[in-house]
């Protein structure tokens, strides 16, 4: 029983991180129609920013907010100056711009923070004795991470389905030409969605900082996993990203007890099966015309 609780909590925090990264990826794809291959780099930037902010401010919550906002701002700049130019271009050019950004970011991190592994350590505020749930040990920070991801998911659900902003974003995803004819500035909707997706990835990085070690290039594996999550859940669907992320998180944490390679194989097998049986994903809508 204790083993199940421990593995479930690990699975849930992996799922939370994956959800935050994958949901940005899926939102950007749903609204802008491009896949941001550099999304993992934003996650990496978030983790490193949180590290520096924590060393300066000594407050974890503040540093997480700073890192989310900082990565959001960075994404906005990236979108305005680079990504925007290739929306209409061939996939080849979109790919190359993201490839260039990943290369530059990895080296920039090396220059600023160094090439060796770094870790933040558990923030003082969370250095409390772990909780015991059915004899299973659950660190306090895990609970915080899961709650943070759940709150973000709820807020996103509310904003996207119940507010005017959500309506505008969904309209832009559905029919950008009509939306701009109606007097809404799609350019800024695009920029806003991109920045918001980036900020989520940054927050995910900040949440991962205390529990994972950081190194340049750390964003790439989470990029691949989030992609698998979005394929399983359905590209463009936020609820699909949630389901997919929890699924992959749990599979990973329970499978990694004995067979790490087997786990990776299972993830890909699940993705291949979904692509063959239901290419639009578990909760995905039919692809846009």
């Amino acid at each position, binding site marked *: 029983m204790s083993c199940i609780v421990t593995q479930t909590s690990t699975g849930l925090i992996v799922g939370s991180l994956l959800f935050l990264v994958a949901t940005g990826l899926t939102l950007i794809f749903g609204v802008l129609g491009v896949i941001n291959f550099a999304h993992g780099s934003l996650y990496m930037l978030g983790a490193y920013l949180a590290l520096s902010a924590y060393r300066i401010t000594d407050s974890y919550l503040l540093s997480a907010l700073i890192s989310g906002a900082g990565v959001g701002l960075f994404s906005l700049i990236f979108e305005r100056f680079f990504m925007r130019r290739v929306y209409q271009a061939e996939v080849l050019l979109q790919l*190359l711009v993201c490839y*260039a950004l990943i290369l530059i970011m990895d080296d920039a991190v090396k220059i600023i923070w160094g090439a060796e592994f770094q870790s933040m350590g558990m923030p003082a505020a969370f250095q409390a004795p772990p909780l015991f749930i059915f004899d299973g040990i659950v660190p306090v920070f895990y609970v915080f991470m899961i709650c943070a991801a759940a709150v973000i998911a709820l807020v996103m659900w509310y904003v996207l389905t119940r507010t005017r902003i959500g309506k505008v974003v969904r309209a832009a995803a559905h029919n950008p030409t009509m939306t701009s004819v109606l007097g809404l500035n799609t350019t800024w909707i695009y920029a806003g969605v991109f920045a918001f997706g980036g900020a989520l990835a940054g927050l995910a990085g900040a949440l991962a900082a205390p529990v994972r070690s950081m190194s340049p290039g750390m964003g790439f594996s989470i990029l691949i996993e989030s992609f698998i999550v979005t394929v399983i859940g359905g590209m463009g669907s936020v609820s699909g990203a949630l389901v997919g992320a929890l699924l992959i998180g749990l599979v990973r944490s329970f499978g990694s007890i004995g067979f790490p390679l087997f786990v990776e194989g299972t993830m890909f097998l699940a993705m291949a099966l979904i692509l063959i049986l239901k290419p639009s994903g578990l909760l995905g809508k039919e692809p846009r015309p």
Partner: protein
Amino acid sequence: MNASFKKDLLIGIVALILLAALPLLSPGRVTLDFVIRLAALGVFATSLNILVGYGGMVSFGHAMFFGGGAYTFGLLMQRTEVSIPVALLGAIVFCSLLALVIGMICVKLKEIYFSFLTLAFQMLIHSVIITWTSLTGGDQGLMGGIPRRPFWGGINVADPNTLYWFCVIIGVVSLLVMRYVLQSPFGYTLRMVRDNADRARFLGIDVWRIRLYAFILAGAFASIGGSLMALFVSGAYPEFSYWTMSGEAVFMIMMGGINVFLGPIIGAGLLNVFNDIITRTTEYHGLALGVIVLIFALGFKRGITDFVGQLFNTLTKKRVQS
């Protein structure tokens, strides 16, 4: 064999003669090594262009076949007593089968999905190589050197000049075969599928099958590039199948131009030169390469051969007018 292929064959022979004269003009290892690298990377980039330029499928995971070929070739040479041509054939067969399995899942997807899915599969192959230490040597790569056994009586690639010859001939022959296939009815069907898949479907063409064949073909030729590289560096490393290798391949064909058959070769040569300069001048390889990529992708937006073609067009038009 039609007239246009005879012309290509002639160009191939001329290229071989020029490459044969090269060691006389410029003695020393540097030039020869450059050409061997160019042969390996050029075949690799051209094979990717079968997908991107001719098939309209932008694969971001093509290095899985480069790495797969390099490892299969290296392992066959190290663990068995087969000769180099047999090991090369083994690499081709293995990568064709790999491409068959992965292609069956990938090729029916829309373009950006296809890019990401090939990338994901490549990372799976990469992590298999990293994890399966007993077979592949893990992140150290295939150590111990790849034996350069003489074959067919007296061909001894342990001699640098023979190695040069071997790589050059394999490279030129591979390019000729690819050219032949792309100029065949299959090649034109592939172009039609790229331009208008619906129309091809109305004409009774099995689009999925054509794309799958192209994917397998590209995988097979990428494995030849990988094998040549493994033979040259006498080893195989996980980086061969890492995503940066795919990124470099995509950049090579973009830089050279995807609309001309020899564009990728020019791109491969340029990237080779860039990489040499970058490695010599700075330790921040990614930063420098990233900036160059951005200049090409956002500044020029086209490959070098496209510029040359455009220039040629305007010049001939002017001549017609005057």
